[in-house]
């Protein structure tokens, strides 16, 4: 029997396991459609805020000497309300709406904007490393995480995912708080707070000085986090961080992820990366005689 690429993350069902990660390419429904046709199982939107944000001045994204990408885009986005109107016509594409905010009310109001939209899930950005008062600064505050997750869970019937990253508190505590507050799944991890300095002009390259490192250099870190979360808690996990090949995808399944997200790989290999990963995963499943992704999830934990 032909193996299936379908996977489920809790009650969220996906045809294919690789999604577009938040922050990448996510501002037009036409592009979402294109990515879906290219083999993405779902697309996660840019993190939306209650008001439109312009983000930081350029340079905001560049490739790092030695590999990987650095960004401090500053969460530029059209705002939840404008965005909801834009995706209202969507029928086909599984869209996961990423939200960023400082207080529970922000999230509650934003979720309400999407009442006429076909939303597969909401992903709470508790881990952006380069914007004050949101993202990691929220994720590092367990009391706030508890209040936000509880509020969001009361505001929607759609699955709610928390995207965690490496901040100043142990991210596993953030995961635990989110689980205790009713979260449906965890995405791990976000970019890792980092910087780069140009030696000729001797100044930090990003206009924001600090940014987030993504791409292949952070893959082993992300994999470790997925393995840790999956070893410690019984919660569906979406692996994210430096995934660019089908082998990377398999590694994350084996570590305990039921699905994956990718972003930087698009900068390196463009959008055929989804199709490449799908084909490679299928081939591997045939070879190893698996019929579902689920059969592989967490296998590396037995050693």
């Amino acid at each position, binding site marked *: 029997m032909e193996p299936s690429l379908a996977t489920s993350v809790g009650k969220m069902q996906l045809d294919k396991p690789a999604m577009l990660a938040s922050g*990448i*390419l*996510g*501002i*037009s429904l*036409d*592009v979402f*459609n*294109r990515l879906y046709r290219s083999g993405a199982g779902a697309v996660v939107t*840019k993190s939306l805020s209650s008001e*439109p*944000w*312009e*983000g930081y*001045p*350029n*340079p*905001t*994204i*560049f*490739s790092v*000497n030695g590999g990987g*990408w650095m*960004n401090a*885009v500053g969460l*530029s*986005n*059209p*705002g939840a309300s*404008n965005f909801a109107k*834009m995706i209202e016509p969507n029928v086909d594409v599984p869209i996961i709406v990423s939200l960023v905010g400082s207080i529970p009310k922000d999230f509650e109001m934003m979720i309400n904007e999407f009442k006429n939209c076909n939303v597969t899930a909401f992903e709470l950005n508790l881990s952006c490393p380069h914007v004050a008062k949101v993202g990691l600064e929220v994720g590092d505050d367990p009391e706030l995480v508890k209040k936000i997750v509880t509020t969001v869970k009361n505001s929607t019937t759609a699955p709610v995912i928390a995207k965690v990253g490496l901040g100043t508190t142990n991210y596993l505590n953030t995961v635990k708080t989110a689980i205790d507050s009713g979260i449906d799944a965890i995405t791990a991890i976000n970019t890792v707070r980092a910087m780069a300095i*140009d030696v*000729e*002009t001797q*100044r930090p*390259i990003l*206009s924001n000085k600090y940014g987030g490192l993504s791409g292949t250099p952070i893959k082993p870190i992300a994999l470790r986090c997925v393995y840790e979360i999956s070893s410690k808690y019984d919660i569906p996990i979406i692996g994210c961080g430096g995934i660019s090949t089908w082998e990377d995808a398999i590694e994350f399944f084996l570590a305990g992820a039921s699905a994956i997200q990718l*972003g*930087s790989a*698009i*900068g390196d290999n*463009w*959008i055929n990366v989804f199709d490449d990963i799908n084909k490679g995963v299928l081939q591997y499943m045939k070879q190893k005689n698996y019929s579902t992704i689920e059969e592989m999830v967490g296998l590396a934990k037995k050693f």
Partner: protein
Amino acid sequence: MQRNSNHTTIVTIEKVVDETPTVRTLYFSDDVMSNVLPGQFAMVWIPGINELPMSVMISNESGKAAFTVRKHGLASTGLFNIKTGEKIGVRGPYGNAFDIKQGKLLLVGGGTGLVPMMRLLTHVKPTDDVTVLIGAKSKDEVFFETLANELLKNNSHKVIVCTDDGSYGEKGFVTDVVEKLVNESNFDGVYTCGPEKMMYKTVQSAHTKGIFVQASLERMMKCGVGICGSCCVGEDLACKDGTIFDGNHLSQNKEFGHTHRNKAGILEDY
């Protein structure tokens, strides 16, 4: 070692030429940038100010290239104010190139949209018959007319300037001349870069006549490599799928000629 096009290379500005009161060309030495294809662009870092996409201007000296910039917003004014001896960063080249046909060609450029047109002129064959249309607001904003004539001195050619106020050349919009020209003769290729409305009308005029036409689109850009999504035009990413698109493709795109996205990604009308 081959240079990674995604890494910024620091170059020193060697010469600054005032083209008009609001437009300057900044020359620098860089082999990679001197050899980019017509239509390709670089991401240009003005340290401490911003980074912006710029079409790469030609130089008559080998191993050199330039940026021709009009002071407009913070970033472009920052670049405009760079002086000889100061440093900027460049990465790229990015984007695709014009598909240059042979025979009778029409090039339509407005403002700094003339930059890729000038590089295109360095790639035409001596047997090509080339018409260059230059659009400007007024006489003191006309530039590259002499350069276009110089680059085409061995070709059968015409350089026509149109000014909105009629203070130089023909009075009126270049797009009216485009419409007239495509009705009069059979062009093998039409190429345009400049204000979107100008490109939209040029593409329409040529495409409805069945003439091969390409336009180089300008959008807000952050990464230049297809990650950030800022430059999307419908389902296309200007940086990665373009910046050059042909008439066939553009006639299917509902945003071209009508809307663009601002820094927050909100659609705004042209």
